[in-house]
C-alpha cells in the first residue's frame, strides 16, 4: 500500500489555483536561468564541452544539462581533466554518471605530468595543481579544439569570482583579462569569438552553496559518497585531516592512519583535500551542518591559501 497516498491527499482545485498564482521559487528561477544559458551555448558555439570535476557542483551541472536538452541527450561531451590523485570513489562516480546520463566521457591526463610523476607530496600543492590542472586543461582544450567549456564555478565562492561574467572570454593563450570582459544584459549573451579564442561558461554563477545542496536534496541528484560522513582512515597533518585513500600516500614518522567519522565539504585531489569530523550522513544533516558551521567552503581546499587574491591570479593564468 502506498502510504504517501494517505498522508498526502490530492490537492483540491482551489489549492491548484493558488499554486498557479504562486511565484516561482528561487531554485526554479535559478534552474531556468542555467538551462537558458546551456541552450544558448549549444545553439551558438562551436564544439562545446562540459568540464566535469565529479564534485557536487558538477553533479548539479550534469543534472541541469540532462533537463535542458531532454528528451535529447546533452549534445556535448564531458571532459575530466584528471590528476590521477582523485579519490577512488570519484573515479567510480565519474564512470557511473557518464553512462547513466548518456554522455560521451573524455578523460585527459597531462602526459608531461604523467611522465614526470608530478604529485602533491614531492612537488607541493602549487606545482601539482599548476601542471596537472592548469596546464592539463589548456592542453585538453587545445587538443580537442573546444570553443566553449562549461564550468561549475559560482560567484559566491570567492571574492574575485563575484565579478566574473557568466561568459568569460579567454585569449588563444587561455588568459583571462578582467578588463576586457563583455557586459551581459538581460538574457543576451554575445558568444562571438575569433579563431583560437575560447569561452568559459558558468551556468551556475548565481547559485550559492546552500542552493546547490537544496537542489541536490529536492531533485535526488546522486553525489559521491565522500560527502556523507563515514568511518574513514585519516591522518592529521599540519592541522588538516587527510584521508589515506590509497598506498601512494607516504606516511611521516609517527603517523598512523586512524579511523574517524569524517566527511568532505569539497572534493579534489585526496592529498590536498581536508576532511571535517562529522556525523552528518544524510543530505538534511549535511545542510544543517553547513548552515550552523562557521568556516567557508573553500577552506578545505588548499589552493586558496597560497596568497591573497590567488584565485584571481590563477584565473588570469588560465585555471578556472
Amino acid at each position, binding site marked *: 500500500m502506498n502510504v504517501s497516498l494517505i498522508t498526502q491527499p490530492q490537492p483540491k482545485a482551489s489549492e491548484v489555483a493558488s499554486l498557479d498564482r504562486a511565484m516561482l521559487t528561487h531554485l526554479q528561477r535559478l534552474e531556468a536561468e542555467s538551462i537558458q544559458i546551456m541552450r544558448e551555448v*549549444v545553439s551558438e558555439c562551436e564544439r562545446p564541452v562540459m568540464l566535469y570535476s565529479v564534485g557536487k557542483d558538477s553533479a548539479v551541472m550534469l543534472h541541469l544539462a540532462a533537463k535542458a536538452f531532454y528528451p535529447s541527450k546533452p549534445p556535448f561531451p564531458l571532459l575530466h581533466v584528471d590528476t590521477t590523485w582523485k579519490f577512488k570513489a570519484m573515479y567510480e562516480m565519474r564512470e557511473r554518471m557518464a553512462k547513466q546520463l548518456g554522455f560521451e566521457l573524455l578523460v585527459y591526463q597531462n602526459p608531461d605530468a604523467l611522465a614526470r610523476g608530478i604529485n602533491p607530496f614531492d612537488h607541493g600543492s602549487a606545482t601539482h595543481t599548476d601542471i596537472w590542472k592548469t596546464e592539463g586543461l589548456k592542453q585538453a582544450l587545445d587538443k580537442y579544439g573546444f570553443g566553449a567549456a562549461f564550468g561549475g564555478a559560482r560567484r559566491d565562492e570567492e571574492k574575485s569570482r563575484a565579478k566574473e561574467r557568466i561568459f568569460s572570454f579567454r585569449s588563444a593563450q587561455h588568459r583571462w583579462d578582467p578588463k576586457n570582459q563583455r557586459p551581459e544584459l538581460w538574457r543576451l549573451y554575445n558568444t562571438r569569438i575569433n579563431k583560437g579564442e575560447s569561452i568559459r561558461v558558468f551556468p551556475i554563477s548565481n547559485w550559492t552553496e546552500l542552493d546547490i545542496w537544496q537542489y541536490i536534496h529536492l531533485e535526488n541528484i546522486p553525489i559521491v559518497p565522500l560527502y556523507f560522513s563515514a568511518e574513514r582512515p585519516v591522518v592529521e597533518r599540519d592541522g588538516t585531516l587527510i584521508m589515506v585513500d590509497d598506498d601512494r600516500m607516504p606516511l611521516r614518522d609517527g603517523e598512523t592512519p586512524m579511523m574517524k567519522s569524517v566527511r568532505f565539504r569539497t572534493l579534489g585531489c585526496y592529498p590536498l583535500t581536508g576532511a571535517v569530523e562529522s556525523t552528518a550522513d544524510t543530505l538534511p544533516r549535511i545542510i544543517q551542518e553547513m548552515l550552523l558551521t562557521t568556516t567557508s567552503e573553500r577552506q578545505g581546499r588548499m589552493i586558496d591559501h597560497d596568497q591573497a587574491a590567488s584565485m584571481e591570479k590563477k584565473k588570469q593564468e588560465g585555471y578556472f
Partner: protein
Amino acid sequence: MAHQSTLIADDIEAYLKAHEVKSLLRFLTCGSVDDGKSTLIGRLLYDSKMIFEDQMAALEADSKRIGTQGGEIDFALLVDGLAAEREQGITIDVAYRFFSTDRRKFIVADTPGHEQYTRNMVTGASTADAAVILIDARKGVLTQSRRHSYLVNLLGIRHVVLAINKMDLVDWSEDRFKEIVAEYRAFADQIGIREFTAIPMSALRGDNITEPSARLAWYKGPPLLRWLEEAPLEDDLREKPFRMPVQWVNRPDLDFRGFSGFVAAGSVRPGDRLKVLPSGRESTVARIVTMDGDLPRAVAGQSITLTLKDEIDVSRGDILAAADAPPGVADQFETTLVWFDDEPMIPGRPYLMKLGARTVSARVNEPKYKINVNTLEHLAATRLELNEIGVCNLTLDAAIAFDPYVETKDLGGFILIDRLSNRTVGAGMLHFALRRSQNIHWQALDVDKPARSGQKGQKARVVWLTGLSGAGKSTIANLLEKRLYAAGRHTYLLDGDNVRHGLNKDLGFTEEDRVENIRRVAEVSRLMVDAGLIVLVSFISPFRSERAMARGLLNEGEFIEVFIDTPLLEAEKRDVKGLYKKARAGELKNFTGIDSPYEAPEQPEIRIDTTLLSAEEAAERIFAALAE
C-alpha cells in the same frame, strides 16, 4: 530576520521545507563613490549571517591593515573584489553578491558610481527587479544620484528605494530627511519615476537596515531589509500575452520535434493556439515536455520545451506567441541606445543586433539627439561616444518580431556587436516600429538578375579595389575595364573621385561621411549587379567593416575584394595628385594613411603587390582570376 538557527538545529527538515518555497529578488545598488554602498552591502551580508568565521577573521585583519574605519570593522572590504581595485579603493565593475533571509533569497548587483562606468550600471540594472539608490544625507541629491535614477528608470525598474544613508552624520534629523525626499520627488516626477520609498538609515551603524532604529523613531516605514523582503515580484508579467523566443530546436529523432526556450511573458497550456513570428504560421500546443513529465502549464520565467500539433517551420530566433495577441514584426525602429565602446557609434556602419535568440545586421541612423543624463537636456549629436545615451532610429536587414521594451523586456531589449572586434559595443531598448514591414513586400520581378546577366553571357559581380590614395587603383581599374570590354563584357567603373563629384558631393571626409560614402557606393553596386553588370569599384574604402558591409549586400561569390597593396612610403613618393604633400602640411584633414587609419584587408580574394607588378600585369592578373 536571517536564518532561524534554532529551527535549523531542532528540525532541519521543517526548515528545508520552508526554504524550498523562498522567492528570489534581484536588486541593484547604486550610489556615488562615497555614499557607503559597499558598507551597506557588507552590512546586509553580515546581518544575514552570510559571513563565515574565517572570512570574519580575514575581515578583521584587513580592517586593521587597510580599513578606513580606524581599526573598526570596515564592511566595505567584504565586497571589494579584484586586487587592482582594492588598492585603488574603488569598485570598478559589477559584482554580484548573495544573501538570504527566511523569506527570500537575494542577488545584489553592486555597480560602481563614478561617471565612466555607465555601462556597468546599465548591465546591473538590466536583470534587477528593484533598485536601491544611495544618497549621502549630508550631500543630498547629487548629479550622480540623478544619473542613477535616470538609468534605473530607463531600464524599466519599477521598485525603487531611496536609501538616505549616513543619517548619523546629520544627527538623525527628520527635517534633513524630508528636505532630501522633497528634492528627489521633484526630480523623480520630471523623469517619470512614479513611486519610490525613502528610507533613512546608517549602514555603518546598522540603523534601519534589518530592524527599525530607535534613533530614527520618527520614521514609521519598514527598514530596508523588510522592504526588500516584501517588494512585489515580476508584477504582471505572467498576465501578459504569451511570448517565447525559440532558442533551440529539440530533435532527438524523427518522431519528436520540440521547441526549447525561456518564457519571456505570459503563460501557456496544451491546447493554446500559438503564432510563429515573423512567418505568421499558426499551430496548437500539443505538450509541454520536461524530464520530470509533461506540465499542465508553464509561466514566464521558466525554461521549457513545447511541441506543436502541426508540422510547421519553426527555427531558432523565431518567437512563439499567443495567436490572438501576437507581437509586431518590423525592420525599422526608434530606440534608446547606450554606447559602451571606446570606439564611437558611427551612423550607417553595420553592427550585429541580438534580440531574443535572433541575430541580424543593423545600421544605426544619425542620433535624433543625445541625452545629458545630468540635466536631461536633449543635445544634437552626429555620433555616440562611450557611455553616451541617445535616441536613434535603427534599420535592420531583416524583419524581426518585437514588443516595445516597456511591454516585454526580453522582446524589446537588444545588444549591438561589432562585426570585427566581436565586442558588445552597445545596448538599447526598442520604443516602436517606424513602419510595419509586412505591408511592404519585396517586389518580385519576372526578369531577374540571372536573366539579365545570362543575356550578356557573364556572371554579374563587383570587383572592389581598395588601397591607399596613390596606390594605383584607378589606373589598374581603367586597364581592367578596357580588357573586359575588349572581351565583350558589359562593365561599369565607379571611381571614388568621380562619385564624389555627383552622388556623394554632399559628403566630406569625417569618419561618418566616409561610412556613408561607402554605403551609397555599395548600394549602387548592388543595383548594378542586379542589372547584370560587372562593376569595378575603385575606392580607398579604408575601413574593414564598410567593406564587410558591401560584401554582405551581395551573394556569395559576387564580391571580389582586390587589395592594391602599395606601402605608404611608396604611395607618398608617387603622390600623383600632390595630396600627401598637402596632408603633411596640415592642409588636408582626415587623410588616409596620415591622420586617418587604413585597415588593410585580412583575406582579400586577390592581392596585388604594386612593388612587384606593373599596372598592366596587375590588370591581367585580375582579368585571369575573373575568368576562372
